[in-house]
């Protein structure tokens, strides 16, 4: 989803010897560890029941497959560090596909268009976003703090849902989340959040007969 063609710019550009993909290696190791844990769980639960029509064949097959694939992935990350997936694709050889074609005409003026079109509500980096942040160097231009904060806000939201009620929790979360995502217009956010939460609450509880927690507000 939403993989805007220009974020794939790396495909068309010659592959520079990027630093070793440590993130991918850690991921591979985590995948392998989780796979082994799940395989062990399935193996223990099966207790020797490997009959093909029994309930434990599928878990064992799936988790074994997981372990094999995670190993394949992990080994791939160590073999040729400058490529994401050396065993299968040589990204430097990708011909200028449709995306690349579109991009070539795209870059100069979109960057310009974006600068003057930059919205006051969003924090933005410099105009270097034509450089890919996804293919080889996932670390470039990626910030870990906003997603972490959004996750924390979500956690707070769902935990508040029952005790505080849908309307209040949603409105609070909405404003907080918009703020994390770069909004600096408190009043506008509140003006959207409160009617939205109330409208959804009444629409669902009265219109669709779906129960939502009322919480502390006398609704």
């Amino acid at each position, binding site marked *: *989803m*939403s*993989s*805007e*063609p*220009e*974020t794939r710019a790396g495909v068309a550009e010659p592959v520079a010897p990027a630093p070793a993909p440590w993130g991918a290696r850690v991921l591979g190791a985590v995948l392998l560890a989780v796979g082994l844990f799940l395989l062990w*769980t399935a193996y223990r639960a099966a207790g020797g029941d490997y*009959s*093909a*029509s029994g*309930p434990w064949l*599928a*878990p064992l097959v*799936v988790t074994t*497959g*997981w372990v094999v694939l*995670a190993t394949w*992935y992990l080994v791939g990350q160590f073999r040729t560090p400058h490529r994401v997936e050396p*065993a299968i*694709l*040589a990204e430097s*050889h990708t*011909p200028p596909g*449709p*995306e690349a074609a*579109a991009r070539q*005409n*795209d870059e100069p*003026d979109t960057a310009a268009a974006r600068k003057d*079109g930059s*919205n006051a509500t969003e*924090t*933005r*980096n410099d105009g270097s976003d034509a450089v890919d*942040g996804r*293919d080889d160097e*996932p670390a470039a*231009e*990626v910030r870990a703090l*906003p*997603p972490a*904060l*959004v996750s924390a806000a979500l956690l707070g939201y*769902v*935990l508040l*849902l029952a005790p505080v009620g849908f309307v209040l929790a*949603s409105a609070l*979360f*909405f404003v907080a*989340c*918009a703020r*994390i*995502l770069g*909004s600096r217009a408190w009043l506008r*956010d509140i003006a*959207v*959040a409160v009617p939205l939460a109330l409208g959804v609450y009444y629409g669902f509880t009265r219109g669709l007969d779906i*129960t*939502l927690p009322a919480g502390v507000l006398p609704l």
Partner: protein
Amino acid sequence: MNVFGDLLSGFGTVLEPQYLLYAAIGVTLGTFVGVLPGIGPALTIALLLPVTFNLDDPIGTFIMFAGIYYGAMYGGSTTSILLNTPGESASVATAIEGYQMARRGRARAALATAAIGSFVAGTISTLLLTLFAKPVASLAVEFRAADYFALALLAMVAVTALVGRSLVRGLISLSLGLFLGLVGLDELTGQARFSFGTLELLDGIDVVVIIVGLFAIGETLYVASRLGQLPDRVTPLEPARGGFGWLSRQDWARSWRPWLRGTAVGFPFGALPSGGADIPTFLSYTYERHRAKNKAEFGKGAIEGVAGPEAANNAAFSGVLVPLLTLGIPTSATAAVMLAAFQIFNVQPGPQLFDKSPELVWALIASLYVGNVLLLLLNLPLIRLWVKVLQIPRPILYAGILVFATLGVYAATNSVTQVLIAYGIGVLGFFMRHFEFPIAPVILGAILGPMMELQFRRTLVLSNGDLSVFVTRPLTAVLLGLVVVAVLVPFLPRIVARLRGRPATAERLAFGEDD
């Protein structure tokens, strides 16, 4: 009664005012949500599922779903053209030329050729669906458990192998989906699997939870990590030329052949287990570019490059409905969500569906025609409204998506734990996007895996544990052979190159990205 008699009675149902209203609501809701950047049809349907929980009218609901789907697809093409933010990989091809057209002041022509092309393709392919559905269903009656096992495996593996750029990452995604599908009570023996001693996991993980987690939560977290990189300027519409002057005579002349060709590519690829609309849209784009008299125009806003892929996208959906309705096998992420919607109403698609609930099936098919017409009538005139929707500031948009995602899961499951599971899957989805793992195989694995396992074990129970049934029954053996072919196809260029004694420089075939 022949097919057209069935269809007529379907129309008889759909054209009742209340159902027309359902269709209109569906189309409008679908377009509204589909226009939002980054939201594709699969997530649109998943987010709107709760709306239908307490409707006790399955026919009305499915008519609404057909409308939602068409609306979402159309809304997605609007977003691709005006904002260059395709909500799903099937719109990526449209975005290439469509956005260029919009930037050169031809947004209206691009939107019109997309809309009319979708209408033409939707109508023709729904006609094909009408003709093919019943014969395929009566063929499918012959299918045994072993065939279903092989079909489910084929659908899963084909999508994983053909869509996306890396086989190993696709297969890891698939394993994750299969694992998520395993969690919970085993259907046949009632044993708890991977529930880790908790009661909450005994019921398994709902597909809606997985979809909302991966698409809505995962996507938003991904956006949050890259706040500075989003295109946020909507290309303005050029002033209207009055009346129906959206397409010039020349535009029509250049559009109609790509529409028909796109339809011709889209429907069969949709019907085959090949991942829905991703492959046909790219094939159509590539084909139109090769054929074009004026190749230089491609990449700068060639109308053929919008007309063809959009038609293919729409035709593929009717194609996807063939295996979904007749076999109960979803072949794309969106079809998987549709299947989940069917299951909420205890409707099990498959060969029996045409005998058990013919009025539902034919009303659904008739509603596809109606939805198509409504879409054409509603959308071009309402384009200014959709442009307004596109201009919603991103922080508000994504905060809203998260509220609706939470609401959707909570309303579906009435459990805080399930919401937490959705969040957890969302975090997973974030890392999957970050490391370029495709999303669609997770959903197909989660929905097809349990189906596959059930059929596998059923086969073995019937054959007294004799595994040879999978190779001695010709149909099953052929289907399993196709699974092997599907895995090898992406490597064809390399294999051919090696056979000719050249170094394997050719890349792996890949179409689109995911979902």
